[in-house]
């Protein structure tokens, strides 16, 4: 089980801030494929990966990052701090 978190408009499109996902995905990209196949709202939220960023266990990473031993994955748009 992995905690999957969504922020900003990703959260709004998917309609929830976090959920537990049972998955055998090996990478973040695999997880995205699984999520997109669930429902249209997921498919829409992940339709343009270039507009998304991902953090694995609270560290920014890439979509080809491994999920081995991972507890938390977060998807969000590019950050706008400062």
């Amino acid at each position, binding site marked *: 089980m992995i905690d999957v*978190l969504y*922020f*900003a*408009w990703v959260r709004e499109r998917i309609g929830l801030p976090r959920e537990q996902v049972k998955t055998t995905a090996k990478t973040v990209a695999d997880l995205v494929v699984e999520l997109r196949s669930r429902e249209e709202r997921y498919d829409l939220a992940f339709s343009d990966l270039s507009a998304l960023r991902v*953090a694995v266990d*609270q*560290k*920014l990473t890439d979509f080809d990052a491994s999920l081995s031993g991972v507890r938390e994955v*977060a998807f*969000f*748009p*590019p*950050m*706008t*701090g*400062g």
Partner: protein
Amino acid sequence: MRISVQEQAFDLGAETSCFAAGHKDMGAIVTFTGIVRDLPDDPLIAMEIEHYPGMTEAALTEIAQTAVDRWSLGDALVIHRHGRLIPGEMIMMVATASRHRKDAFEAAEYLMDYLKSRAPFWKREITAQGEGWVASKSEDEDALKRW
């Protein structure tokens, strides 16, 4: 080094004064403060800042520690608010203390460039016409190439 992610307002004067007073062995102190712009003709009613609790503090700590190491800073301070802010309110501040002005300036600019695009904050603008997420700017991403 102090990192604070907080909902409540901070006192810029008190924070700046306290930071400088703690570093009398440093010749140069630089601060940057970000404010929600309050423009007479601007339709902005409020700005809402979402963040990623846990990761935010870790990301800010890593960014600040990198700056401290790279520029041999005496100290660094980062305060960043989240929640609902109205025009005129302060969003965040950074402060750097160094022996030399060039290092204090560069480190503060580095902190700001990384805070903009590498710390997990997302801004949403609420106007009379509606609401929307602030888009990241390509110039903010480009600014990182300097470092």
